[in-house]
């Protein structure tokens, strides 16, 4: 052996054995988006100071650092916004040629795509969700919704054959903090396509993407007053709901608030759609493609830190594969990367607010107290910010709070079943009925299950998949009315006989 070759052999022998492959941080740049120090209310096409004079601070939940001062709209502010919307409705927008309305919507969609990085970063900074999701899911889907409803704007007669659709008027829309921009798109796109004008209130904790959206409206040269954005907490929402000149309320949020809204609106003649909580069953049969089903379980509950109304928070596993599925699930959970939402490798980001973190912690504690078995993978959480380790509970009884109440966090409860009938019974045994998942290789079983599951959306061999063409909405305490698809136009049109 030559000296060189011996040297090489030596080097090869001493090749260090890797003990870890830590991915270096890969953060998306924050400075692509410019956050102002303070924001007013977007009314009549421009930012105005709140008459209330009240402001609050919106924060970055991953760093617990203030981002901006945001206006708290009061009664006078909401009234001003509704009047601006009424004015825009009466003086132009509702009479505009539908193909012209479509042009604005197409423009908005394209601008969202062009500025997608800005929106993705802002959504992650203000909401805590991983950039991978805001970049690959939230923002592209928001743009897709505008594209989709832009297409309907001049074809409404075809959406409702033999009827003559006309707009409802001014729509008051209140959206949650889990998908701020996407929920805005779900609400605004069909409303404008059908010729309505809008007053939208983003969630208290996540107003920034809606405020950046105002700049998109400016670029699109949308006529003033067609879309108005009022920020603030529940008080602003309540003012909007009770305003006498609003024709329709669309609300996405908690069941508790949804019920209160319905009470307020009773007898007023205002239209209402509600998209509320959920406690969805994700049902795994023994013939399911197991590794993919495990991905579906993970995507079902840990997507967006579990802040998803249709999250698959109750896992129903056929007993014969229970141990295999749980072993696979636990191993997969250990590979979830929890941390900086702006890191491109992060799978699970920050909890949206302190309040939500407290709620999750309390419910998890109740699960432990009631006797469920808890598993959390080893996980190093950042020191600052609001975080919760992905959690799974096994040995859960249907009667435990964690199997009944919506946790809205990265917490999964596992139950078992023996027959399809039992799976249906357990899946439907909840006050909610928003969504469900079925995993099986058997097509006939998918259809049979979907027919019997009382849930607005049933996913087969996938989970948390959204498309603007697919209607979304709930049964029972998960609300009523559909968003997305042709069905999503219905709440925004009055149908006269042709």
């Amino acid at each position, binding site marked *: *052996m*030559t000296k*060189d*070759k*011996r040297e*090489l*052999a030596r*080097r*090869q*022998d001493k*090749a260090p*054995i*890797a*003990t*870890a*492959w*830590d*991915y*270096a*941080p*890969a953060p998306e740049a924050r400075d692509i988006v410019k956050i102002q120090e303070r924001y007013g209310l977007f009314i009549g096409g421009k930012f105005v100071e709140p008459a209330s004079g009240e402001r609050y601070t919106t924060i970055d939940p991953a760093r617990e650092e203030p981002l901006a001062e945001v206006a708290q709209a009061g009664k006078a502010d909401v009234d001003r916004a509704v009047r601006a919307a009424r004015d825009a409705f009466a003086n132009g927008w509702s009479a505009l040629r539908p193909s012209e309305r479509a042009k604005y919507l197409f423009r908005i969609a394209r601008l969202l795509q062009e500025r997608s990085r800005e929106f993705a970063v802002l959504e992650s900074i203000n909401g805590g969700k991983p950039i*991978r999701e805001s970049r*690959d899911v939230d923002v592209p889907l928001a743009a897709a919704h505008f594209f989709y409803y832009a297409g309907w704007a001049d074809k409404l007669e075809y959406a409702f054959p033999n009827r003559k659709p006309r707009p409802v008027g001014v729509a008051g829309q209140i959206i949650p903090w889990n998908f701020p921009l996407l929920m805005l798109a779900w609400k605004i796109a069909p409303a404008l396509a059908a010729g309505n004008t809008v007053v939208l209130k983003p969630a208290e904790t996540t107003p920034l993407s809606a405020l950046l959206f105002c700049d998109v409206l400016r670029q699109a040269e949308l006529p003033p007053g067609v879309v108005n954005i009022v920020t603030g907490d529940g008080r602003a929402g309540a003012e909007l709901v009770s305003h006498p000149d609003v024709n329709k309320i669309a609300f996405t949020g908690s069941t508790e608030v949804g019920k209160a809204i319905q009470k307020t609106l009773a007898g007023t003649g205002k239209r209402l759609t509600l998209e509320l909580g959920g406690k969805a069953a994700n049902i795994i049969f023994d*013939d*399911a*493609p*197991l*590794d*993919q*089903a495990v*991905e*579906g379980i993970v995507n079902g509950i840990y997507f967006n830190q579990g802040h998803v109304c249709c999250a698959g928070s109750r896992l129903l596993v056929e007993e*014969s*594969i229970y*141990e*295999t599925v749980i*072993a696979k699930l636990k191993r997969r959970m250990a*590979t979830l990367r929890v941390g900086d939402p702006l890191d*491109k*490798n992060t799978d699970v980001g920050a909890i949206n607010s302190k309040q939500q973190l407290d709620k999750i912690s309390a419910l998890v504690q109740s699960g432990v107290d009631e006797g469920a078995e808890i598993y959390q993978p080893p996980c190093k959480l950042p020191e600052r910010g609001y975080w919760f380790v992905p959690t799974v509970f096994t040995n859960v009884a249907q009667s435990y709070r964690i199997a009944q109440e919506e946790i809205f966090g990265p917490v999964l409860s596992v139950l078992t079943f023996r027959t399809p009938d039992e799976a249906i019974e357990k899946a439907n045994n909840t006050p909610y009925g928003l969504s469900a998942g079925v995993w099986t*290789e058997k097509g006939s079983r998918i259809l049979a299950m979907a027919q019997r599951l009382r849930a607005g959306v049933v996913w087969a*061999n*996938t989970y948390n998949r959204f498309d603007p063409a697919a209607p979304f909405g709930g049964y029972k305490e998960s609300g009523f009315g559909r968003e997305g698809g042709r069905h999503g136009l219905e709440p925004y049109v009055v149908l006269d006989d042709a």
Partner: protein
Amino acid sequence: MATAPVLPGGFELPLEPRLPRLGSVDAVALEERAASLATRSIKREAKLFALDLAIRMMDLTTLEGADTPGKVAALSSKGIRPDPSDPNIPSVAAICVYPNLVPYAVQRTKGTSVKVAAVATAFPSGQSSLEVKLLETREVIEAGAHEVDMVINRGAFLSGRYAEVYDEVVRVKEVCAGRAHLKVILETGELGTYDNVRRASLLAIAGGADFIKTSTGKLPTSATLPVQLCMLEVIRDVHEETGRVVGMKAAGGIRQSKQAVQFLVQVHETLGLAWLTPDRYRLGASTLLNDVLMQIRKERTGRYQNPDYFTVD
């Protein structure tokens, strides 16, 4: 655990070691997962780690009709010392050649850590008699090959004669046993579905494969990320069910460092660190090496160097 050993229809597998249930693969979800893992952003030290690994785990390959002793000798030298100007660059894992060229590769790599792998069993089509396949295997081992890359009988597989596929692997394994490592090429580009990839993987493993390998590199569709993921999941199931360790080799179509890193990330996140060693994972490639060398130098210096500074062999 309630998972029974499941037998692909029409033949029987030995009950020991127990195999995981045959199971099924959902194509949409599999591809989604592979695509999502491919978005991992691997930078700086993490990238250098991966590139260094990629070289250590590389089967530097030449499989051309035009291969000559000179070409193989040059390739072997390249494999032993990929970058003469940088002593920190490791050798590749093996040189992979056609049977006739095994002696030249063996001669040139003698005394180094670099192994010689030979494709055999009527590579790439496998359309030959079992006797010919066994003979070829015997010959390459006698010529000094440390590793044998066999192809499965796709003709038999696709016409449902699984027993024949299994049998061939077993017979080739008998020839290799104790003398050479056996890598079984599934040629996934011809199998049509991920369910078939899973089934063929299980067959190969049951037959005694030390490694399962995606492709011959002779088809337009070779190693893809979803195909590798599908195979890694089989390896994982087998390991969990039986404790048996099976290696993975992705081959064909991997030309860029970026791809190599994506394949490694997938191994890392599916099978863990334990599989990130040349004993358990290989990348079969002919042109990848220089791109990896170039990327390593770029990471270290911040600049891309002219390709003329990397030897072409």
